[in-house]
């Protein structure tokens, strides 16, 4: 259920209308081929031997007995993959199989290829690995105070991976002058993506030296680069094809050990090699939400105007870098893009621990500080006698503005989102007025529509769309963009079909294949609709121009009087068809044109003039606001979310059904993190690496979700569209925390908000103690000296 408060709606045929996705029928008939469904002849199956130790030096690996098992073809170890790789140029710290050391329970140390998995499993048990066990650090505190072997030898001291300290504007002055200062500590637990499809990949190496990898991956281009590096092949001889993907959410956005190992085994054996992960192994592959310690200090006037904000974060990074440096920067990037802040300080750090590596999960480093900020605003509002809506409305970032940390805000529908969601939920009539045990909470947030800078520095487009047409009317669209279930293929087809006046079924797509399509950076940072979309529009408009020019010349009509509509060239005003699309294409080709067009997109230069400015800028930000209604059982602490309203400014809803689907999915994932999900550890071990122990909400746990679409028609988005894949998750956890407080008067400053934590806070309340459950201290970390950055001209001032 939804309602759209849209701006003037041009007369679109496809855009803005509810349409089925172009890949819907294969998915509902069981014909969509995910990585493990692809048929191959003469396949070998690979399994990864994993470390039982959280931290150990590898002394020797003896695979003699394993190799002697009938049906085993090859065994490899780190020695066969000596070249390190990593998604970020500054973090090239991974090998497909551990070299020298293993750094978490589950770290792959060898790979075996055999005729079938059962044989591989049996033989894996015969590989003998001699380890020197080292002390493991399972928490940030342990890592920071460790005296033994650091987790990474070339890292900074005390297992610190990355530190950052930035200041924009006169922060101390703001705090000294403030009428009211509020400081709070929060902790946000780690979580896994739990994409329903377990990772799987098949590698094949041809005798003439070309490697192909079919994989469930969100980022074929980045995987191609990493494979080329790790296997020492030229990139042009590495082809990565993303199969249909059963969910990603950030867990499949970099080259992963099973892909690298399968590729090496394919090169050695000369046969296609499949490696698929069990659910437990997916928890070890991880790259999920960083557990994060967040400390916030806010300065405000008596009327609730924020005058300064200080954010401190410590990320528990797990054993490898992954996207972690970017995650660290993200943990401080977005507050000034949500609220008007004249002074802002951010100190962040990432620490290695002996756990599966954390990386990007939907929201990438921003849900955690968002949780803290939106709960702090709630507390601040109460301190100052304001309601949660009023304090936010008072401080909204302005549309078409620039922030102190050099982020450019263009369209901003945050006011409308807050007002719509408050109105739809009756928030002000319910807040602080419901019977004990029932409560409502509010929160807002913002997110990027794609990172403005690529992961590896280059001056090239972030995406390219090639369109090719022919005399039959066939329109073939190629782009490396990867549909991970979010519907990017449908967006691509819709945009091209809209411009060319065709039906969706007339658009042939080739996507997510590095050989068949030009580079698109991949499905991460919510970039695909915005960037692929703009490139697609440019290409389609170019082709349209070619065709209308040729037709206009032939019929002696000015181009501006012609349109493409319903598979025809037609007169604009009367809509009367004058030539069919195939005839028009033939005419165009006969006149000498090539019937091909390309479009590219690179964001405008947006990064500020400081180190770290590359993370945070985006060509457009989406905005979301959320109200959650909860019922809290005051005797058991159980929290039941009963209704959620989420308003999202995604620029324009290219397809309301798809947009609502992303909102509903984001709310679901946000509730999952808020109340149930946790990647938790028992000593050195993942406490529950199973789909049963990892508590993701079921259909019976989910409340009704009301989707409210706010449209601001962003001037740089394709048809005004911005992102919707990640934004809606972000305000949900803090809205839940605020709702719990409204219901029973206890603060849980920690995620997930499990019933035992609520009950503990209720017990304190009953004893007359401060009714809060949450962290009492912040990790003992030394940040570097602040880099003071001059805010840009036009940034908010006191």
């Amino acid at each position, binding site marked *: 259920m939804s309602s759209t408060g849209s701006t003037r709606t041009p007369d679109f045929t496809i855009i803005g209308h509810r349409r089925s996705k172009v890949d819907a029928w294969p998915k509902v008939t069981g014909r969509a081929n995910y990585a493990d469904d692809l048929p191959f002849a003469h396949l070998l199956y690979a399994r990864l031997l994993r470390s039982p130790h959280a931290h150990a030096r590898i002394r020797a690996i003896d695979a003699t007995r394993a190799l002697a098992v009938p049906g085993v073809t090859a065994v490899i170890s780190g020695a066969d993959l000596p070249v390190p790789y990593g998604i970020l140029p500054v973090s090239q710290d991974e090998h497909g199989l551990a070299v020298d050391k293993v750094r978490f329970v589950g770290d792959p140390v060898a790979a075996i290829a055999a005729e079938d*998995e059962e044989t591989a499993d049996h033989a894996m048990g015969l590989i003998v690995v001699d380890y020197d066990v080292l002390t493991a650090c399972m928490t940030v505190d342990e890592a920071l105070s460790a005296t033994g072997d650091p987790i990474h030898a070339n890292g900074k001291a005390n297992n610190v991976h990355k530190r950052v300290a930035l200041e924009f504007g006169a922060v101390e002055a703001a705090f000294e002058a403030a009428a009211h200062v509020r400081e709070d500590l929060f902790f946000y637990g780690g979580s896994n993506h739990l994409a329903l499809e377990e990772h799987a990949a098949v590698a094949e190496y041809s005798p003439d030296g070309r490697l192909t990898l079919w994989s469930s991956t969100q980022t074929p281009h980045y995987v191609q680069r990493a494979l080329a590096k790790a296997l020492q092949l030229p990139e042009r001889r590495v082809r990565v094809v993303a199969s249909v993907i059963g969910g990603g959410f950030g867990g499949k956005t970099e080259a992963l050990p099973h892909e690298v190992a399968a590729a090496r085994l394919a090169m050695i054996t000369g046969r296609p090699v499949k490696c698929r992960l069990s659910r437990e192994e997916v928890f070890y592959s991880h790259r999920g939400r960083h557990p994060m310690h967040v400390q916030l200090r806010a300065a405000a006037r008596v009327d609730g105007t924020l005058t300064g904000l200080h954010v401190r974060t410590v990320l528990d990074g797990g054993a490898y870098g992954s996207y972690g440096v970017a995650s660290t920067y993200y943990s401080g990037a977005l507050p000034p893009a949500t609220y008007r802040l004249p002074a802002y300080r951010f100190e962040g750090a990432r620490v290695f621990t002996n756990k599966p590596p954390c990386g990007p999960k939907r929201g990438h480093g921003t849900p955690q500080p968002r949780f803290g900020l939106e709960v702090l605003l709630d507390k601040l509002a109460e301190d100052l006698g304001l309601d949660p809506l009023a304090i936010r409305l008072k401080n909204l970032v302005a549309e078409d503005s620039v922030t102190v940390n050099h982020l450019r805000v263009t369209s901003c529908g945050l006011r409308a989102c807050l007002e719509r969601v408050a109105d739809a939920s009756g928030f002000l009539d319910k807040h602080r007025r419901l019977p004990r045990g029932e409560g409502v909470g509010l929160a807002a947030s913002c997110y990027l529509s794609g990172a403005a800078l690529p992961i590896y520095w280059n001056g090239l487009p972030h995406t390219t769309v090639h369109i090719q047409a022919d005399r039959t009317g066939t329109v073939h669209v190629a782009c490396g963009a990867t549909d991970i279930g979010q519907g990017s293929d449908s967006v691509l087809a819709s945009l091209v079909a809209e411009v060319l006046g065709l039906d969706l079924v007339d658009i042939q797509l080739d996507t997510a294949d590095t050989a068949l399509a030009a580079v698109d950076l991949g499905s991460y940072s919510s970039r695909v609709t915005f960037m692929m979309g703009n490139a697609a529009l440019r290409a389609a408009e170019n082709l349209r121009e070619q065709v209308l020019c040729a037709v206009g010349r032939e019929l002696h009509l000015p181009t501006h009087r012609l349109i493409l509509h319903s598979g025809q060239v037609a007169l604009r005003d009367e809509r009367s068809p004058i030539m069919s699309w195939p005839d028009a294409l033939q005419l165009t080709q006969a006149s000498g044109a090539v019937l091909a067009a390309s479009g590219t997109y690179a964001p405008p230069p947006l990064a500020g003039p400081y180190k770290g400015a590359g993370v945070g800028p985006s060509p457009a930000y989406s905005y979301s606001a959320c109200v959650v209604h909860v019922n809290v059982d005051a005797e058991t602490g159980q929290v*039941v979310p009963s209704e959620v309203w989420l308003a999202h400014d995604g620029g324009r809803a290219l397809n309301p059904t798809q947009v609502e689907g992303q909102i509903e999915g984001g709310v679901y994932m946000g509730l999952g993190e808020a109340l149930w999900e946790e990647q938790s550890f028992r000593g050195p071990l993942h406490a529950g690496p199973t789909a*049963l122990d990892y508590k993701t909400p079921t259909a019976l746990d989910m409340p009704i979700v009301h989707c409210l679409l706010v449209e601001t028609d962003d001037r740089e988005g394709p048809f005004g569209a911005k992102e919707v894949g990640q934004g809606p998750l972000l305000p949900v956890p803090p809205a839940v925390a605020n709702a719990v407080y409204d219901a029973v008067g206890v603060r849980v400053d920690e995620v997930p908000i499990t019933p035992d934590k609520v009950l503990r806070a209720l017990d304190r309340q009953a004893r007359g103690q401060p009714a809060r459950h949450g962290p009492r201290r912040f990790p003992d970390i030394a940040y570097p000296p602040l880099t003071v950055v001059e805010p840009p001209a036009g940034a908010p001032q006191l």
Partner: protein
Amino acid sequence: MLHLPSFRYLAPRSLSEAVGLLAELGAEAQLLAGGTDLLPLLKRGQLSPRYLVALAGVPELSGIRTAAEATVRDGSGLTLGALTSIAELTRQPVLRRHFPVIGHAASLIATPTLRSMGTLGGNLCLDTRCTYVNRSPLWREAAGDCLKCTGDVCRVAPGDDRCWAAVSSDLAPAMIALDAQIRIAGPRGERVIPAEALYRDDGLSHLTLSAGEIVVDVQLLRPTGVCASYMKLRPRASFDFPSLGVAVALRMAKDECENARVVVGAVASRPLRIAEAEVILTGHVPTAERLSAAADAVHRAIRPMDNVDLPPGYRRQVARVFTERALQHALRQVPARAGANGALTPGRQN
């Protein structure tokens, strides 16, 4: 993909054939009913039986029969074959009419599909569970395998010399509360025991079945005036095993409780009858103070371990709340007390 280990498959066509096979094959054989508990154990390498004896074709284990003989105080009786699916237990009209707590407990088990596949006997005989046990070989090697698998230490209570794996059945507490009778067939013939006697408090060997014995059916007799209730604590509204299960049954005569049973699941290796709570209730009018005192007694008596979802201290606290609520809920079913107030408070009552 996780694969099953290889085994030899046998499908007896009668109870005597099944009993004979078990006697012949000994400890290397495992019984297969619905398979929803057994197959995961095999896939995780916790068990590696040489033989699987499938019970699906054994007619004596199927069916639901109403008792021919009159039972205590003109109640009606019901015999449930061990292969009765959990789903069938939720639907069966006689059960719903006379023993609603059983259908209710059944409806809280797992998921709809798992309830269709799983059986009464399977749920009563569910293996005990623990965070350290229901894990892959890699995980157990990394943890140091525990007493229940191939190791010699209980990881949850290293100082103890017993296994603390928790009983995980939702039906067992309810069956014990109703004093269900379990018929067992084995090499030495048949025997009938009260449900309570099926269990012992040992995570390694929590069923008192001897070698080669099979649960045949469960008989429920219904003296008049019995009201019962079951509450389950779990993190989600589906899938999850009980973190706590509280079953109560009260036999009421006018205003007085003639007999009370209070049974708690998932806090020990067997469902625990809490005698201290039963004594408080039996022979008295169940006033609010009595219910509260009984709930306090449960809270004092149980010692949940850190081996299932949710922290043990929390589960103890909730046990108190659930006992009180279960008693209130049970009493609301008694016609004489039908005017009793109290809407259930919100939250996951289960």
